[in-house]
């Protein structure tokens, strides 16, 4: 250390060959290090079972991580699948598929050799199979023991059908490689054409070559949400349950749902619906009916058969209501219509004022307004941002409750105002019609004074099959953010589940009257 010359003089282990591909370990590491929340990384090629060599990425991150495990005197922890997913989306643009690590492990600090270099040997000797839960599930995802046990989301199922039909193979795994299933370029074009017909949107042909499994292709197409959906924001696409759709409120964006998304069930896929004009330069429709129809087009494309669980946040409850009506009228199955604390009285449509938004933003994100608007345009990064933002808010804002402070609203937000005006006038003009279904009303325990029908906030006159009241902590402004987000999410999940069970029972008793008598 005295001469300070500890430069790494090249390693023999930084080039490996896996399945005939020459892998540049250094290239993978530098791509990883480029990720915004990665400080440093070490990638190890390891034979996890005979003839099966996998790349394992050990990552030191500035994310807040709890290290509960110590293996080979290194503190390790699972990288949550959502983070892995977002990393992979990013890495996909820099690395060919064969250089994508199979597993990602957080490391508190890398072990050092006597000379102060990263001790790769010590890292490579970590028995990574012992790393808790997440790794195990990743292993089973990568090499499913039993193909029938794969949990597919809807889009993966649709892709699987297209692949099986075109390749004339049955029982594909979503991790089977296209080229290992007898696929070639002619079938590639066929498949991409069918996907294009299915989505109504062109997907670059080359994406099948760089993402040759159903899993990676679905991930690529979904991950590239910017081009695929205008309103639908995939917050979490994995899980075996039917998806829930959370419809934006007065703020127009869906970042507000990230707090509760963290606490919903692991098997619960979640989609946000953001306002028209956010993703793309377009003027929102001027009626609630037309807006709802636009949203539904994407929802149905994503999930053609239902059932549909819709939850509107605040003023978004009106949009959710109209969506549910339209679904119901077209014969689709709405398993749930949720309303987050929004009354039916028309006077309340005025909630979406500029002043209100300005105040909300000022209160919640003092110095990050610019970043905030960027996130609206790039919902993919929202999760990471939200995590940091949450910390900021808990540390800073809540302790300042009651203290008025002026922050200038940055110019970046101005494009939202005309959108809000359109939404406000559409909501004001909306003539609410009865809905032939039940409504689940999540009602803040702290009720705002000017509601006449304190019990159902006016909804009993419209939801023909009744209003189910769920009382939730907090007031209208904080019921889905900390400290109330966790308890809210628990209640929301249980209502979603109850409705799905009822839907299934109903569905099954209609198709087979002898079953489900105990439900």
């Amino acid at each position: 250390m005295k001469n300070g010359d500890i430069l790494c003089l090249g390693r023999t282990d930084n080039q490996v060959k896996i399945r005939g591909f020459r892998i540049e370990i250094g290239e993978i590491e530098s791509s990883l290090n480029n990720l915004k929340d990665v400080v440093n990384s070490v990638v190890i090629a390891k034979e996890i079972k005979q003839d099966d060599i996998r790349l394992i990425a050990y990552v030191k991150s500035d994310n807040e991580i709890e290290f509960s495990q110590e293996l080979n005197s290194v503190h390790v922890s699972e990288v949550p699948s959502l983070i892995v997913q977002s990393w992979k989306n990013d890495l996909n643009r820099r690395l060919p598929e064969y250089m994508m690590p199979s597993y990602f492990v957080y490391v508190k600090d890398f072990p050092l050799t006597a000379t102060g270099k990263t001790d790769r040997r010590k890292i490579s000797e970590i028995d990574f199979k012992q790393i808790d839960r997440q790794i195990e599930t990743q292993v089973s995802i990568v090499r499913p023991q039993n193909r029938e046990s794969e949990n597919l989301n809807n889009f993966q199922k649709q892709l699987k059908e297209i692949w099986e039909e075109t390749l004339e193979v049955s029982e594909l795994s979503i991790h089977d490689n296209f080229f290992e299933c007898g696929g070639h370029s002619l079938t590639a074009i066929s498949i991409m054409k069918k996907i294009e017909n299915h989505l109504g949107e062109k997907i670059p042909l080359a994406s099948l070559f760089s993402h040759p499994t159903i899993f990676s292709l679905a991930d690529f197409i979904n991950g590239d949400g910017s081009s695929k959906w205008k309103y639908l924001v995939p917050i979490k696409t994995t899980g075996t349950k039917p998806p829930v759709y959370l419809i934006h409120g007065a703020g127009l964006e869906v970042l507000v749902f990230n707090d509760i998304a963290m606490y919903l069930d692991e098997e619960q896929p979640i989609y946000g619906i953001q306002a028209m004009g956010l993703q793309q330069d377009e003027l929102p429709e001027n009626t609630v009916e037309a807006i709802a129809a636009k949203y539904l087009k994407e929802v149905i494309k994503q999930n053609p058969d239902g059932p549909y669980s819709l939850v509107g946040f605040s003023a978004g409850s009106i949009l959710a209501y109209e969506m549910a009506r339209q679904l119901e009228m077209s014969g689709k199955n709405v398993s749930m219509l949720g309303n987050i604390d929004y009354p039916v009285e028309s006077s309340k449509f005025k909630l979406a004022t500029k002043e209100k938004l300005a105040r909300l933003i000022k209160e919640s994100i003092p110095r990050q307004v610019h970043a905030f608007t960027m996130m609206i345009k790039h919902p993919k990064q929202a999760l990471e941002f939200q995590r940091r933002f949450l910390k900021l808010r808990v540390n800073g804002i809540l302790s300042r409750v009651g203290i008025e402070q002026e922050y200038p609203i940055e110019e970046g937000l101005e494009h939202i105002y005309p959108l809000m005006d359109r939404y406000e006038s559409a909501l004001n003009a909306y003539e609410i019609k009865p809905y032939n279904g039940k409504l689940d009303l999540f009602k803040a325990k702290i009720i705002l004074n000017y509601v006449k029908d304190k019990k159902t906030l006016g909804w009993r006159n419209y939801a023909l099959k009744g209003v189910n009241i769920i009382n939730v902590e907090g007031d209208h402004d904080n019921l889905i953010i900390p400290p109330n987000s966790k308890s809210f999410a628990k209640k929301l999940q249980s209502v979603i589940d109850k409705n799905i069970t009822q839907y299934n029972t109903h569905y099954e008793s209609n198709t087979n009257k002898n079953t489900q008598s105990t439900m």
Partner: protein
Amino acid sequence: MNLTLTKTHKVQCSWMSDVRLVDIQACKFKEELAVFCLQVSDFEQNLTHLKKLLNESEVLKSDNFVMEKDRKRFIVTRGVLKIILGKFLNKNPEDIEFYFEQHLKPRVKTQHSNLHFNVTHSADRIIIAISSKPIGVDIEHVDEEFGFDQILDVTFSDNELDYIQNSNNKSEAFYLLWTRKEAFLKATGKGIDDDLQQIPALTGIHELVSEISDSETPWFVGSFGIGNSYIASLSFSPELLKGPINLYSTGPEILMV
């Protein structure tokens, strides 16, 4: 496509009437252009032997195929390819190794940088083309059942669509043009992508802006039939077009030659 580029190169597409079937014994394995044609089913008894020529990762790859027919086809293709390349390079087939160029075009690892090869298969047929210059080959079984109507618009230009629609045998016309595009893309190493409609395929000479392939070298794309139900196209430098194209049809005797 940016049409402001003025660099162009010529691509000639045509039928090749002077393709002749030649016995494998006549092959010197020194030719500037040699095309080998085989049938997977001929090698049913030789799979174990051929598999021994594969390295670990190739064996792993063969085991990863979902369907048996693909596994067999891969073993035959890779095994015979290694035998043929071994003969061209005076090496043992087991010692032949590959690496991937840009766009993942496979090349053989050797000091002789001017040994190029390209491989294609369809149904039971395999073609291996070897050349001293970049080469591309594609074979397709003319499959009347394949719903090619679906993909016509993403694959062909308006003129090409007209040609197919006005042909007596639409599937043959489709596969003819398809194999030409595919062979050309494989020769240039670019691989298949969204430029398909721009790739020349109709019989005749085409001027091509050089963005599609990086060099200004001209290309010849020649087609021929194999048996009654296969169409193949080869794409290579017109310099190699010196006489008839030799098509070496071989069964397991390649293991003994």
